[in-house]
C-alpha cells in the first residue's frame, strides 16, 4: 500500500508551508512592501511608526503579564489537580464517600474543555460585571447596593479578569494533557516509594512525577502560552480597553479606515511573533534551570505535609467547575429573559421571544458552523488515519516528539500567520471562500484529532490484526473491517473533539471567511460589543451547548449500535 506514503508529505505540506507563508506575508508589509496598497520599497519606516504608537509600551507589558501569568497559574493548578484526581485517596480524608465525591467533581473539570473560549468568556463577563450575577446575589443578601457598584470587576486595566477567564479554559486543557501522559510512566509505584520514604502526596508529585512528566506536556504548555499571549476573542470580551493587549491593537489597526495602518498592523504582528518566541525561549530556559540544573529542591530531603495546599487545590478545582456551570446557566437565563433589571437575581419576565426573533439567522449560522466543523473534522480524520496507517508500512515507531510540527499552528500566534495569509490571499483572491475557511479550521482541528486518535490507534491489540491478516484479510479490509470498527467509539469521540475545536475558532473564521461566513462564535463575539445580554445569551448558550451535545452523542451512539457487544462500549 504505497499510496499511504503521500499522507505524511501532504500533511506536512498543508501545515508547515502555509505557516511559513503566513509569517512571510506579514514580514513583507512590516518592512513597507505591499504593492496592492502602494508599498513598493523595503524600509524600516513602518517599525518607526509602530514604536511611536503611544499605547504600545503599556500594551506590550499587559500582553506579557496576562499571557505568562495565566499560563503559569493554570499549569500549577493543573499539576496539583492531577495529583488529587489520579491518586484518588487523599490520605487525610477518612470518609471514602466524601473523597470520591471530591475526585468526581474535580474530574468533571475535564469536560469543560469542550466549551468554546468565547462562550466561557461571555458567561464569565455576565457573572463578574458590576451588575452581574455575583454582585446581584451579594446585594440580595447584605450589601445594600441598589445600583451597580462602581467597581472595576470587568475589563480591569491590570487584565485580572482576562487572566481569570483564560484560567477557566486552560486549566482543564492542561489537566487533560497531564492525565493522558501519566500512564507513560509508572507513577503509582513512584508515589508508593516516595511515600514510604516519608514524602507526602504533593511532595512526591512535584519532586518525582513532575520532572518525568513535564517533557511530555511541554508542547501543550507552549501552545497555551502562545494562545494566551495572542488571544483575540477572550481579550475582546474580558480584556482591558485602554490600552488593550497587542493582539487587539493589531485587529484595530487592520480595521482602521486609513489603509496605511495595514502596514502598522503587520509590524505589530511581527512584534507579537517575537514576543511569543522570546517568551517560549525564556520559559524553556527557566524550565531547564528548575527541573534540571538547580534541582537541589528535589533532593534536599525536606518533607512537607502539604495538607493546606491540598485543601486549597480542591477548593480551586471546585470553584472552576461551579463558575463554568454558573456561566452556562446565566447565559441560558439571559436568553429567556424579557426583563431582568438590576438587582434582581432572576429575570422578572420570562419569554421565548429572543429565540423566536433570532431563529432565522440562527438556523443559517448553526448550519454554517456545523458544515465547516464536520467537513474539516472529516478531512482531518481522513488525513490522520492515512498517516497512522502509513506507519504500519514504514515499520518505524514514531515518537511523540517527532510530531512537533503538528503543533506548529498552535505555536505561532494566530494573529501573526493568519494575518499574513490573509494579506496574501487578498492578492490571490482566495479570501472569503468556503474552501479557504475550511482549510483554516483544518489547521487547528488536525492537531487535536491527531492527539486524540493516535493514542487509541496505537493501543489496538496487534495480535488481533495479525489474526485477521492470517485469515486472508487484505490490508484495506483490515483497515475498515477490523481497525476502524474496533475503534468506533474513539473515532466518534475524536470527531466530537474536532467539532468542538472548530466551533471555538474565532480568528480563523473572521480572517478566512472575509466577513462572508458567520459562525456561532463570530456572531456571539460580535454581539458582545452591542451589550444586548439577551442576544448574547442566545448565541453563546448555543455555542457552549453544541460541542457538549456532540460529545454526548459520541458516547451514546456506540452504546446503541453495539448494545449487544459489551466490550465495545
Amino acid at each position, binding site marked *: 500500500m504505497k499510496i499511504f506514503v503521500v499522507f505524511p508529505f501532504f500533511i506536512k505540506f498543508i501545515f508547515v508551508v502555509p505557516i511559513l507563508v503566513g509569517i512571510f506575508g506579514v514580514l513583507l508589509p512590516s518592512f513597507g512592501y505591499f504593492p496592492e496598497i502602494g508599498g513598493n520599497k523595503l524600509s524600516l519606516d513602518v517599525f518607526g511608526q509602530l514604536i511611536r504608537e503611544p499605547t504600545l509600551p503599556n500594551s506590550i507589558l499587559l500582553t506579557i503579564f496576562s499571557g505568562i501569568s495565566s499560563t503559569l497559574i493554570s499549569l500549577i493548578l493543573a499539576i496539583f489537580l492531577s495529583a488529587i484526581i489520579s491518586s*484518588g*485517596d487523599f*490520605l*487525610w480524608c*477518612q470518609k*471514602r464517600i466524601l473523597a*470520591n465525591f471530591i475526585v468526581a467533581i474535580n474530574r468533571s473539570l475535564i469536560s469543560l474543555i469542550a466549551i468554546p473560549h468565547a462562550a466561557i468568556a461571555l458567561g464569565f463577563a455576565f457573572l463578574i460585571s458590576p451588575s452581574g450575577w455575583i454582585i446581584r446575589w451579594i446585594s440580595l443578601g447584605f450589601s445594600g447596593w441598589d445600583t451597580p457598584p462602581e467597581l472595576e470587576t470587568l475589563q480591569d486595566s491590570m487584565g485580572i479578569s482576562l487572566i481569570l477567564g483564560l484560567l477557566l479554559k486552560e486549566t482543564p486543557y492542561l489537566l487533560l494533557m497531564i492525565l493522558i501522559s501519566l500512564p507513560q510512566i*509508572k507513577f503509582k*509505584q*513512584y*508515589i*508508593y*516509594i*516516595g*511515600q*514510604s*520514604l*516519608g*514524602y*507526602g*502526596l504533593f*511532595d*512526591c508529585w512535584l*519532586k*518525582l512525577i513532575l*520532572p*518525568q512528566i513535564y517533557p511530555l506536556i511541554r508542547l501543550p504548555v507552549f501552545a497555551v502560552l502562545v494562545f494566551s499571549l495572542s488571544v483575540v476573542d477572550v481579550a475582546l470580551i474580558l480584556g482591558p480597553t485602554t490600552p488593550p493587549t497587542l493582539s487587539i491593537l493589531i485587529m484595530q489597526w487592520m480595521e482602521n479606515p486609513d489603509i496605511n495602518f495595514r502596514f502598522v498592523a503587520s509590524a505589530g504582528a511581527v512584534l507579537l511573533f517575537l514576543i511569543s518566541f522570546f517568551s517560549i525561549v525564556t520559559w524553556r530556559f527557566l524550565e531547564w534551570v528548575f*527541573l534540571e540544573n538547580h*534541582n537541589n529542591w*528535589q*533532593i*534536599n*530531603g*525536606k*518533607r512537607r505535609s502539604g495538607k493546606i495546599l491540598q485543601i486549597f487545590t480542591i477548593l480551586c478545582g471546585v470553584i472552576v467547575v461551579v463558575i463554568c456551570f454558573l456561566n452556562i446557566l446565566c447565559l441560558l437565563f439571559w436568553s429567556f429573559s424579557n426583563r431582568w433589571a438590576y438587582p434582581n437575581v432572576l429575570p422578572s419576565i420570562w419569554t421565548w421571544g429572543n429565540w423566536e426573533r433570532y431563529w432565522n439567522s440562527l438556523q443559517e449560522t448553526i448550519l454554517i458552523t456545523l458544515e465547516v466543523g464536520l467537513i474539516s473534522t472529516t478531512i482531518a480524520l481522513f488525513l490522520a488515519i492515512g498517516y497512522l496507517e502509513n506507519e504500519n508500512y514504514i515499520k518505524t515507531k514514531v515518537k511523540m516528539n517527532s510530531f512537533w510540527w503538528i503543533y506548529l499552528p498552535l505555536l505561532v500566534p494566530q494573529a501573526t500567520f493568519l494575518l499574513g495569509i490573509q494579506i496574501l490571499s487578498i492578492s490571490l483572491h482566495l479570501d472569503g471562500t468556503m474552501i479557504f475557511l475550511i482549510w483554516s479550521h483544518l489547521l487547528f482541528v488536525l492537531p487535536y484529532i491527531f492527539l486524540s486518535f493516535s493514542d487509541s490507534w496505537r493501543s489496538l491489540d496487534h495480535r488481533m490484526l495479525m489474526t485477521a491478516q492470517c485469515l486472508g484479510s487484505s490490508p484495506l479490509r483490515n483497515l475498515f473491517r477490523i481497525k476502524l470498527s474496533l475503534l468506533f467509539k474513539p473515532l466518534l469521540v475524536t470527531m466530537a473533539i474536532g467539532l468542538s475545536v472548530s466551533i471555538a475558532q474565532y480568528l480563523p473564521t473572521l480572517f478566512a471567511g472575509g466577513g462572508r461566513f458567520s459562525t456561532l462564535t463570530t456572531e456571539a463575539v460580535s454581539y458582545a460589543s452591542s451589550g444586548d445580554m439577551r442576544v448574547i445569551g442566545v448565541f453563546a448558550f448555543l455555542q457552549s451547548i453544541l460541542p457538549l451535545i456532540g460529545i454526548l452523542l459520541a458516547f451514546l451512539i456506540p452504546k446503541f449500535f453495539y448494545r449487544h457487544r459489551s466490550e465495545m462500549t
Partner: protein
Amino acid sequence: MLKLENITLKLFEKNLFNPFSIEISGGTIATVMGPSGCGKSSLLSYLCGTLSSEISGSGKIVLNGRDIQKIIPHLRKIGILFQDDLLFPHLSVGENLAFALPSKFKKKERLKKIENVLEEIELPGMYSKDPATLSGGQKVRVALMRTLLSEPEALLLDEPFAKLDKDLRERFRNLVFSHARRNNLPTLLVTHDSADAEAAGEKIIFLK
C-alpha cells in the same frame, strides 16, 4: 518492634485470607508466604497505608508503640523494597540517595554520607551517574540503601529477590538481611520462594 494483630483483607466482603497476628522484634525477619493472588502485596499496601479503594483491610498495626493504622502513609516510617528497583530516572544515582536522606543533614554532611554509602555498596565516585546505566545488581543495591537512608523504623520486602538470577539473588539476600539486622529493623518479607524463607530463618506465616 512491629506488632500486627488480627490482620486481614477483604475484597467484596470476602476475606482474602484468615486473620493472623505476629510480633516482629527489631533485627528479626518474618516471612509471609502464600500462593499468587492471595493478597500478599495488598497486605504490604495495607501496612503502608496505600491500599486501593476496592480492597479494605482491618487489624491493628503497632510500630514501636505507635498505633499507625490511621496515620497517613508518608508519616508511618515504614520502608519498602520491591522486585523492581524503581530508581527515579530523572535523578542521578547519588541524587536518588539524597532524596531519601532526611533534611536534618545539611550540605556537606549530606554529600559525605552519600559518598560513604556509595563506597559501601561498591559504587565509589558514581554520584552523578545515570541509574539507567547501572547493572541489575548495582541497581538493587542503590534501591536498598535509598530505603535505609530514609531512617525507617520497619522494613517491608515485596519479593525483592524474585527477578534476580540465582547467584546474585543469594548475595543480595545476604546483604539485605545483614543490613536489616545491623539497623535493628523489624522486617517482613513477602515471597513465594521457600529458599528465601529458609534464609530468613525466623517465623513463617502461610496465608490461606
